[in-house]
């Protein structure tokens, strides 16, 4: 561990490269966390199936980018798919996930909107188990990557090392920023977005003003799923995904939201890229096999820090 730190200290360009890589991944984390903050703020639900929507989008990207054949003997159906560029999945995944999110809202979530937090945590955790097992059984139980052949961009070559950035990560960063920007404009300046914010402030008053809160909730939840789907496509192109790795994205976005606070877009972005960069450096220092332990340990530390700070200010946590 100490040797790793020394290695990093001797190679500042490598360290810079790590941090830049981390920032680009962190932008995607921020996107996922933004969705979680939206659902939390508007519906008062902590959506533990967040990560599974991400992985679902990732699998869609994988199946868009690889060639496959499907034969159903019973009805004599045979489909073959040539495999196109993974970025096309950015059109498909949000649509599919919007429908899935809307479906889950209409079947389950609308029943728990006004119930206690425990019910919503457990119910969304149930959805997360359901989706995990579905993806594991129906898609594939292997680690997959969406192939993209976009190569790396050699940004800077020096005597001590070089700065090479994968192009796909730059696309991910730009796309995450665009989506985040469009979403905040949507929330601030369109009628639909204003309706969402009105319901978040006071659902009862909003209903008296003629807003159908149920429809707003449905739209919010589906929008969050679509956001996760898009983020999932970018994740599948930059990292590896597996049917069971969703939970860690939920943990990350929960952490980002409690660091930033609800309704703080700048905070979410800063916390997201901070987490991404920190994780990347920690990955080198303590090893990739401890990555999940690092993220969960960091969440515990953040929760405890928050608890201690609130206790010192004599504020109650509930």
């Amino acid at each position, binding site marked *: 561990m100490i040797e790793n730190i020394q290695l990093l200290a001797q190679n500042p360009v490598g360290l810079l490269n790590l941090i830049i890589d981390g920032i680009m991944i962190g932008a995607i984390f921020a996107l996922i966390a933004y969705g979680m903050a939206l659902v939390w703020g508007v519906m008062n639900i902590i959506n533990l199936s967040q990560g599974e929507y991400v992985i679902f989008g990732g699998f869609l990207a994988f199946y868009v980018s690889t060639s496959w054949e499907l034969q159903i003997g019973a009805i004599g159906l045979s489909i073959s798919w040539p495999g196109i560029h993974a970025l096309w999945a950015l059109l498909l995944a949000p649509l599919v996930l919007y429908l899935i999110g809307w479906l889950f809202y209409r079947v389950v979530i609308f029943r728990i909107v006004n119930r206690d*937090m425990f019910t919503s945590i*457990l119910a969304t955790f149930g959805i997360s188990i359901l989706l995990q097992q579905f993806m594991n059984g129906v898609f594939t139980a292997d680690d997959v990557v969406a192939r993209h052949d976009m190569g790396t961009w050699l940004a800077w070559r020096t005597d001590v090392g070089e700065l090479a950035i994968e192009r796909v990560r730059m696309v991910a960063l730009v796309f995450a920023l665009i989506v985040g920007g469009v979403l905040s404009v949507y929330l601030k300046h369109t009628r639909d977005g204003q309706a969402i914010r009105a319901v978040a402030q006071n659902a009862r008053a909003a209903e008296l003003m003629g807003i159908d809160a149920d429809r707003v909730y449905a739209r919010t939840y589906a929008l969050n799923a679509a956001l996760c789907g898009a983020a999932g496509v970018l994740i599948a192109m930059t990292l590896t995904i597996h049917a069971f790795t969703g939970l860690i994205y939920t943990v990350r976005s929960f952490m980002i939201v*409690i660091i930033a606070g609800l309704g703080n877009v700048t905070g979410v972005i800063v916390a997201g890229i901070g987490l991404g960069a920190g994780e990347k450096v920690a990955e080198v220092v303590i090893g990739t096999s401890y990555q999940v*332990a690092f993220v969960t340990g960091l969440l515990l530390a953040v929760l*405890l820090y928050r608890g201690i700070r609130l206790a010192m200010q004599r504020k109650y946590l509930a």
Partner: protein
Amino acid sequence: MTLPTSSSGNPANRRFVLLCLAIGVLSIAAPFAFPAIVKQLSIFWVMVIVAYTWDTMGGQLGYNSFGNIVFFGAGLYMSAIVQIAPFTNMRAYTAAGEQGEALALSMGQYLGGLAPGLVAAALTGFVLAVVFGFIILSLRGHYFAIGTLALGIFLAQIFANWEFVGAGSGITMPEFPGQGRASDQNKSILFYFLCFGLASATIVALRWLYSTRFGLAINAIRDDEDKAEAMGITTTRYKVVAWSVSGFFLGVCGALYGNIVRFVDPEETAFDGPGLGVWMVLMAVLGGKGSLWGPLIGAVLFHLTKELLWTYLLGFQNIVLGILVVVIVVFFPEGIMGWVRSRWPHMFGESVDLSRQAEASK
């Protein structure tokens, strides 16, 4: 008219003793009546224990923990170390992994390892709960729920990277001495009665605890923690004690479970947060949170359903379990005991003023 409160003093106790006797006789006869499924029956008692210990936190104290699995897993690993390390080179043994031979011991060595293993597991669960309790029980509500979820994943990862206990490739528990069907049956019966005994001890101990001042205090914390504190209850101490009672029984329970299943994988056996960690919550919720018999009823129903699903829905059972979680939580949050209680309140010593109800409905 006010119904008389029937369950004060002796009749309730007599009913409890009779019920216990009936369950006890059935449970002692069960392994001999159904010798083919003794292992499943012991796992049923494991389910009962985890459901009861979860209910102490979630039902009685009002702290919905997703991390109770931590004590289960830690107890399991501690007993593995105590049962293996004195008899062989632990490092070489775990390095061989699944391919290596399981440790063969004489009966004296086996039992001589098992007994201290169980004690060590209990202490591990207890000590860990005290340590984590002082740190994590300061969180409340959903922060506690997600904090404990993270704690479970965190420890699973630590154990999955710890070479001494086999890291990610797991560890095989010592072989029960003897060969052939008779020895297998002996092992199953031994562990059945250990599990049954532990479950009975858990239920009796918890029933006693709930009837003391401690029970009143943790229920007060569940109902309103700030008020309880204002009334002079040392909330932190009570919370930590409640969790360490859970941890104590869960530690032993984990050790027994490890010996029953024999092969221990860090993420799928010991720290199975998405599996056992959720099932324990589900069983308590299904039976009725915060009631004495709820977790038992929940465990019976859940275990039966699960075993049937495993038999008839091969491949889809886990998807169905996910659906089950959602359905139970969304449609049946009060559980069976909660439903019985609202249907026949006088059975719980609650009096209903029927005359006022009649007036109100006029």
